[in-house]
């Protein structure tokens, strides 16, 4: 039979001899031992020190009545313990992340199932209730559970299985003790995770970012609202912040740093490796509403006289660079001036010995770094661009603006 935490709280507990011991006030789970088992019951008894009953000391559990299989003397007195998860205090009314539904939800009630072991009964948390039935039970808590169960019948159920529940604990020490990891969050799409984090408190967001691996953290920060990512980075340990910024695309990192006080952003840039830091520094010089502010200074460029074969061979040697998003390659002439772009598809279809300049896209398009974003949008719109090259006064390529930069700029206008 399924039991709810709201039904069991306040139940009278009796020992093996049938003597009243106290009332159940709290359930604890010891995640280090078993992730879903109720390991301890807190029994209060008025003015005396509350007692703790271990799971193997409980003979039966039903709404209103808990029977122990030992005498009262076998119970220990309660001592607060940080490594125990308290169902009422840490779960009820708190926000959790529902991994399967990719949502932040608030817990109304906790559902448990009893499991018979030899001579005792164990409660296992099966799911958390986030829907109306749980709300009704909370509201009417104290009425006989039969009445409540009748009333809530027919209400739409909304529950999340315990294995899909990701707890949020801002305190890193407690997180460690409760074995709360955010590994499962790393499997979510960074954009989903970012959206969920916007609903959490400042401290909770901080806790999640701090416990993710750098790569995921960087991806999430790139997707988060700029104000929030700036707030998070500012509060992180500088070394960790620099590690995360290093993983981010330079233009996204520049966006984050742009709103920080000068000293803080300088400190973070100093922690970053020279090459990455320089790229970000340069981007910080531009107004975010110009081509220079939108561009990414990391782009792929090759000499226009090189052949397709040479380019492919060079790309294969570059394991550091990520070509996943690559759709256009920038060409430069022997003077390092911008001479055109080659769509990757054209390259795929070309022969090995074909020089890159024969694959150029027409017309030849580029903008200066001071061009305002509206001009950039118009170019993308008119020529259906994927990528636009930004060049300086001497027509040397400085970076590229890709269509996703345009989309995010448009969305944030």
């Amino acid at each position: 039979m399924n039991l709810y935490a709201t039904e069991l709280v306040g139940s009278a507990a009796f020992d093996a001899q049938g003597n009243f011991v106290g009332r159940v006030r709290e359930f604890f789970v010891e995640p280090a031992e078993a992730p879903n088992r109720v390991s301890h019951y807190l029994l209060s008894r008025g003015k005396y020190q509350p007692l703790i009953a271990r799971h193997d000391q409980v003979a039966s559990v039903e709404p209103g009545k808990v029977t122990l299989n030992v005498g009262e003397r076998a119970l220990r007195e309660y001592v607060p313990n940080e490594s125990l998860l308290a169902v009422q205090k840490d779960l009820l009314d708190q926000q959790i992340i529902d991994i399967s539904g990719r949502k932040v939800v608030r817990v109304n009630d906790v559902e448990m199932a009893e499991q018979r072991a030899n001579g005792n009964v164990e409660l296992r948390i099966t799911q958390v209730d986030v829907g109306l039935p749980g709300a009704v039970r909370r509201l009417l808590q104290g009425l006989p559970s039969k009445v409540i169960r009748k009333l809530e019948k027919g209400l739409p159920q909304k529950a999340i299985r315990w294995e899909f529940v990701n707890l949020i604990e801002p305190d890193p020490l407690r997180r460690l003790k409760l074995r709360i990891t955010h590994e499962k969050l790393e499997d979510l799409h960074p954009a989903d995770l970012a959206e969920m984090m916007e609903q959490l408190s400042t401290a909770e967001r901080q806790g999640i970012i701090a416990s993710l691996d750098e790569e995921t953290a960087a991806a999430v920060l790139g997707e988060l609202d700029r104000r929030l990512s700036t707030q998070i980075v500012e509060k992180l340990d500088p070394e960790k912040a620099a590690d995360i910024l290093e993983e981010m695309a330079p233009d996204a990192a520049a966006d984050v740093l742009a709103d920080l006080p000068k000293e803080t952003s300088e400190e973070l840039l100093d922690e970053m490796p020279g090459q990455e830091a320089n790229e970000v520094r340069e981007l910080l010089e531009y107004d975010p509403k110009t081509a220079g502010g939108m561009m990414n200074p990391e782009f792929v460029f090759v000499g226009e006289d090189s052949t397709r074969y040479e380019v492919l061979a060079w790309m294969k040697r570059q394991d550091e660079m990520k070509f996943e998003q690559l759709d256009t390659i920038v060409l430069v002439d022997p003077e390092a001036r911008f001479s055109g772009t080659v769509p990757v598809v054209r390259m795929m279809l070309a022969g090995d010995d074909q020089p890159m300049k024969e694959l150029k896209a027409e017309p030849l398009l580029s903008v200066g770094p001071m061009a305002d974003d509206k001009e950039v949008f118009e170019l993308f719109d008119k020529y259906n661009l994927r990528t636009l090259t930004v060049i300086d006064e001497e027509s040397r390529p400085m970076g590229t603006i890709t269509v996703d930069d345009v989309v995010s700029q448009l969305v944030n206008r």
Partner: protein
Amino acid sequence: MVNWEAIAERVEALRERGSGMRRRVRGWQHRVALLLAVVGPGLITSNVDNDAGGISVYTQAGAQYGYALLWSLIPMTIALYVTEEMCARMGVVTGKGLSDLIREEFGFRSTFFVMVCGFFVDLANVVAEFAGVAAAMEIFGVSRYIAVPIAAIVVWVLVLKGTYRQVEVIFLIACGFYATYIFAAILAKPEWLIAAKHIAIPTFHFQASYLLMLTALVGTTIAPWQFFYLQAGFVEKKVGPRQYRQARADVLLGSITCMAIVFFIIVCTAATLYASGQRNITDAAEAAKALFPLAGRWAGVTFAFGLLNASLFAATILPLSTAHVICEGLGFEAGVDRKFKDAKIFYSLYTLLIVVGAGIILLPKAPLWRILIFSQVGNGLWLPVVVIFILLLVNRRDLMGEHVNTGAFNAVAWVTAIAMIVLTLVLVYTAIFPSAAGAPLGG
């Protein structure tokens, strides 16, 4: 073969050289930009305080006592600022709304209680706002049966189809329209020197009706729902602890402009209605009509327009804020950026508030007077509960860290809270037993 390693180096060198471009905006421009990014919630919330009910009370205060009550504006500004600042601080530090915090710290039942009370009190307030729309439009010769449905539709569409930014811009413009009261006051040709004297020097009359008017002033200026809206506003704007100073400036600016408008309304009616002996005005629409012969057509029109603006403004914000707060506290999905099927309860509540609020005004024999009184009584009863929740939460070190109230601030806040509670309870008492007051009070 072209040596692109060399080219790469050259491009790199050129890139570093070519960066002497436009610098980011720094210095004072930067600071103004920072403030502008945060301004909004405080300014909007305080100004919405001057809603239909509020304007009626200020009008009566000016008509009955002339400039004599002006001194109370300064302590009221302080009370408004102190209470609002705590909410702004909570929003900025925790990143959570007030109802979220109440739920997490005080559990489901307390939250449910607060939400249910809030719903009914806010509903009464929404009715009062639509009553304001009806009264103002009737001065312009438009029947309420045309004006109120149109207003309801405009409000509904504006919020559901606009983005947060657009809506906020419209709200800020609406704040600007409060300036009409400045014109109305100037057109009324008041005696500025006497007004200034009364601001600085309190005059106290120990008459029941005088004290009652004082109480009504305070009671209508600080409404309980505004705290939820204010805190949510800062959370939604993603204002962080580092911008706390700007947020505080926003709240201060809001409190001061709110009270400045009250000042102009009182001055306007004092210079005209009080001076000419028309002292038994009961609501703002009546005052606007009385202004036509006294201060000229434009004074009356601007006064009525101000009332319309204020009522519409509050009628937009109240249902939205209420639906938001309730869903947030009880764990339903909320927000105008959600689709209808994801946030059914939110949209239903929002629509219900507007439909019922506007609908009651259209009932042929609607007991508007009773509803207005009920909205004030409700505000008065609910305010202490909300303020006590706020004070308990803002003193929690585990939530607020170093930003908990200081001892001095707590003293000011508790004194303010208790004074407000006493005053509003007096107001509630006299609203329920009008014979105790002697003079009628507008909603």
